[in-house]
Every structure is written in C-alpha cells, then in structure tokens.
C-alpha cells in the first residue's frame, strides 16, 4: 500500500492530508493555525496526520507542498503552485468542474481548468487582501464576533449594507460607521460578503465563467459568502466539507501521479 501527503501552508491555516494511492481515499486530515514558523506548521500537521493514520514518515512515498509556505518544508519532494493544486483538488471533489474560485485568507484566484487538471487560464487578486478572507476577518474583529458565526449570522440579513471601500483596513472604519448609525450586525456582515464577492466575481469573469464552478479555500465555510457569490453568478457553486482542503488534496493527487510515474521509471 502506498501513501502520499499533501501539505498546504496557507497564510492563516496549514492543512495536511494523507492519501492512499491504491484506494484513492483520504486517510487523515489535519488543520492548524500556521503561525509565524511555516516549516514548523507543516511538520506539526504532518506529524499529527501520520499519528491519526497510524503511519510513520517512512510510509509516505511522496510529499507535495503548496501554499505560500511551500518552499519552507525541507522534507518535501516537490512544491506546486496553489493555482495547480486547487484546480486539481476541485476536480477530485467535483469531476465536472470547469471553473475554480479559490478564496483563502490573503489571496483569491480564479482558474479555468481542463479535464486533466491543467490550468488553461487564471487570475489573482492584487497585492492587498481586500478580495480575500483577511477582509472578512477584519470585519469580524471590528464587530467582535467569532469567525465561524460570520456565515450563519450574515444569512439572516434583511437589508445588507454597502461597504464601498476597496481596502480591508479602511473597511474597518466603514463598518464602525455603520455600527454608530445603528445598522443591524447581520446586515453589515452580509455587506462585507457582498463587497468581497464583487471582487472575486470580477476575477472569475476575466477567465470566463464556465459551469460547473467549484469554490475552494477557507472562505467556502462562510455560507453567507457562498450565497453572495451564487447571487452574482446566477448559478449554484460546488462546495464541499473538504473545500478548505482542496489545495492539500490537489497536492496529494499530484503526488500520487508522480509516485506512479516514478515507479514506472524504476520498473523500466
């Protein structure tokens, strides 16, 4: 039995999956805060995933890393861009995927993907995080609510407020203005979802929207954001419980393909 590992070291969370290349199933999944030491976060989640799967490091035939900390993992076999990994992961989760939206803490990306996982076109957000999860985090922080409450609360909005700022930092003061005006928290939260989704949809339009569209990255856990995106795109998005792990999953699948190829080379 052969196993591979995919490690996605994101700006906020590090995700590690262990994958059985024979059954093509995930055997362990671990997620943890990345913190300031990217290599340590990868090692920590890798060790935890191994313990969960009852495996040793020597049992892992190939380790692929992705995410912004992908170069900081000394024990990797390969590092792969988030663009490729999220596309591959999205296809694994939803095989009819043609477009992928990956919204993480710091970056948003829109990709068009061929059936074999090759990315045919992609766009990324600009340098700041105004179109990504960090924006949502700052709004949550300003309103003193837990991040996991953001989605459910925003779905209760009756009159979403406009948040016009394109800057995550300045949005905070805009949110405070809405609070002092006495606006409902739920409406402000949905306003933040709408503001971010406007920017993400603009990215997707640049690569041309082609259904099915799969949403990956941590922001997929925000049900309010999913609704805002679906309203703008006028279609329903593929969202999975594993959406946040899509990058690590793509890395696992690539790793198993490379392992198989290398095995063929050895056999030849």
């Amino acid at each position, binding site marked *: 039995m052969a196993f591979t590992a995919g490690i996605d070291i994101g700006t906020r969370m590090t995700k590690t999956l262990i994958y059985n290349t024979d059954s093509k199933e995930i055997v362990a999944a671990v997620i943890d805060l990345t913190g300031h030491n990217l290599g340590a976060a990868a090692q920590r989640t890798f060790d935890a995933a191994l313990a969960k799967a009852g495996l040793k490091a020597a049992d892992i035939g*190939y380790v692929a890393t992705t995410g912004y900390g992908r*170069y900081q993992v000394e024990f*990797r*076999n*390969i*590092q*792969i*861009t988030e663009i*490729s990994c999220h596309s591959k992961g999205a296809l694994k989760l939803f095989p009819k995927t043609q477009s992928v939206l990956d919204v993480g803490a710091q970056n948003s990306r829109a990709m068009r993907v061929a059936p*074999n*996982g*090759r990315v045919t076109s992609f766009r990324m957000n600009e340098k700041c995080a105004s179109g990504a999860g960090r924006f949502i985090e700052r709004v949550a922080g300003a309103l003193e609510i837990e991040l996991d409450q953001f989605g459910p609360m925003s779905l209760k909005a009756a009159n979403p407020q406009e948040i016009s700022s394109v800057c995550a930092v300045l949005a905070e003061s805009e949110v405070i203005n809405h609070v002092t005006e006495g606006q409902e928290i739920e409406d402000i939260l949905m306003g933040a979802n709408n503001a971010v989704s406007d920017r993400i949809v603009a990215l997707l339009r640049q690569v041309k929207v082609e259904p099915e569209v799969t949403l990956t990255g941590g922001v997929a856990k925000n049900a309010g954001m999913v609704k805002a995106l679906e309203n703008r795109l006028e279609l329903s998005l593929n969202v999975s419980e594993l959406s946040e792990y899509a990058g690590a999953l793509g890395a696992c699948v*690539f790793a198993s*393909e*490379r392992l198989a190829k*290398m095995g063929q080379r050895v056999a030849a």
Partner: protein
Amino acid sequence: MSVSLQQHLQRCRKVVYDMNFTYVDAWRQQHPQGKVVGCFPVYIPREVIHAAGMLPVGIYGGGLEIEIDRADARVQSFICSISRSTLELGMSHYLKNFDAMYFTSVCDVARNLSGVWERNFPSVLVEYIHFPQNMESKSSVPYYSGEMRGLCQNLERIGNVTITDEQLRHSIQVYNENRALHRQLTTFKQENPGKLDASELYLLQRAGACLPVEEHTAMLREVLDELPRREGKRRDRIRVVLEGAFCEQPPLELIEIIEEAGCDIVASDFALGLMWFLEDVPVQGNPLENLARSYLTQSDYSSVRHYGLKRRDYSLVEKVRRVKADGVLFCIAKFCEPALIDYVTHKNTLEREGIPLVNFEFEEKMGVFENIRMQVETFAESILLFA
C-alpha cells in the same frame, strides 16, 4: 588537513563578491614584482598572462555590491549593467591595483568600453583582443597567434619579463588541468543534481576567475573528492539547460530560485569563459599556434564567437539531448545583444525539435524575483505534472 566543502564554498562566496579585491592584495604581497591583469568576459587566453608570472582576474562588474555613481556620466543607461558597473569599479578606484585590463570583441559595448578605459586610465595597459571571425581560413591561426604574440610583448614590457615557449607550454598544461576539473564538476552535477546545488557549482567555478589557477585546481580536487560522500536532497524536479551567453552575471539568488522553483540546472554556460575548450589544448609544439588552433576548432559554442563549422542552435539541441534535459531556460542579461540575437534562432530550432523553453531577462542589480519564480515554476509544473 584538507578544507571541507562548506569552507571552500564560504571562501568562494567571499572571493567572488569581494569588490575590494583583497585576494589580489594578498597575492601582490606574495609577489611584490607581480602584475595583475583584469579580464573582462567572456573568454581571455589566460595562459598568456599566467606564462608572464602575472595574475589574471575576471572582472564581472559590481553586482549588488556597489552603487553606480560616476560611470553613468560616461555611458548610456541603455547598455548592459556589467559594462556600467565595471566602469564604476574603475572610476571609483576599486581596480587601483590592476596593471592591465583585457577586453575582447564580444560586442560593441565591450569594444567601446576598452576605448573608454584607455582614455580614463592612461597608466593602465589596455588590450582589445580581436578574435578571428573566420574559423576555416588558413590565415586564422597565424592571425590569432600573432595577436597573442602582441599580448606577450606588451606583458613583457610592463612586467620586465621574458615569456618563453616553455613557460607558455607549462601554462597551457596548468589550465588544461583546471578545465578538466571544471568538466568533471559539471559532469558530477549532471549525474547527481541533488548533491550539488547550481548556486554552489556556480560559486566553485566562478572563483576560478579570481584565484590563482593552481590554488583553484587544488580546491576543485578536494571538492570532487568530498562530493560523492555528500547526502543529496530528494527533490522531484525537471532537468534544464540554462543559456545566457555569460558575460553579465545574475545575482546568486536568481540561480537559487530557479532550482527551488523546480528545475535542476544540469548544464549551463555560467562558466563558459573559464571552460571554453571542449578538449585539452595540445601542449607539444608551438604554444600560441596551439591555443589559436584550439580556439578555431575546439571552442564550445557561444553567442560571442563566430560560427564555426557547426551552427550554435544545433549544438544547443545536442547538449539538451546529451544531458537528458527536459527543457531550456534562457536567462538573458538586459540589453545583451549577442544573447538576444541568438535567442531567436535558438527558440525556432528548439520549437521545431519539440524542446520546451522559457525566456526571462535579468540585471545584475535585480532584487525582486517573484515574476521569474512564477515563470519557472509554471514551466516546471507544465512538464512535470502534465507532459
């Protein structure tokens, strides 16, 4: 006691980026009558300088180490960085201990730089070597050996020495030995890419442009002895040939990033000027004629040497196949006309042969590499994951 590989690498890094040329000062202390000759890339017949008992030192610009201040008043901003920063080295007195400067017919900028040098540094012997352009003419050997005879005479004059044929033969032998070790080191990299980083190979080879050749040869021997015992990194990468007609040198970080982004550089022309000949130069017979004949018939292909009997693009394809490379990276210095002109032919031929390639430009003062990293990473992924 032999010095460890890590210590050798530290020493090479120190020497390569020492713009105060303290190693030259150290050599002068040991050789009070000795003269130091600066060698502008790409290739200089160092044997001639060595035979005169002088120290040839490669001058590859100022890199990230110096700021351009005085040179911009004398040359345009649209020429390559190496020419501007080399002139800055001169104008800002970094080369005050150099007795001569050699330039060659690699491009118009280098040609004009030799003139600028003559005008600004009248006490320095400035040589401009016209390499033969016709590789097949019977006159080329006498012509080029005559050029080198002229170099010898000027060195004899400034050094108050006599250069004998026997000394020249000895120098050819010394450099043959050094070039053979360069070749061994590059073969080691091709066969064991995980055991020697391209940036390490670069430092080990480029130090050969600075150190006395005997010292460099001894160092390469120790390195080659230690390398097989080194533990390799287990990285899954594509194998690439890197081309750049070097001359202007990229920042070391760029080389590191290329490998980090998924490419094992199994062949490059970074050390082209130091290796130059594909085989040993014959030792017996007339030494200058031997050097000239080797230049005409045994030189590696290069954008700064006129076509020999074989086209350069075909030589590149052969190299790709020989080292089993998956693709070619063109890493070309901004404003480098020889490399940019050749790129068109190389690109067409590689595409015709179905060999993937990617092209990017660099400057010696470059500090941000994210675009190049992205290009190289995407290139590697397209081959590794989808080919």
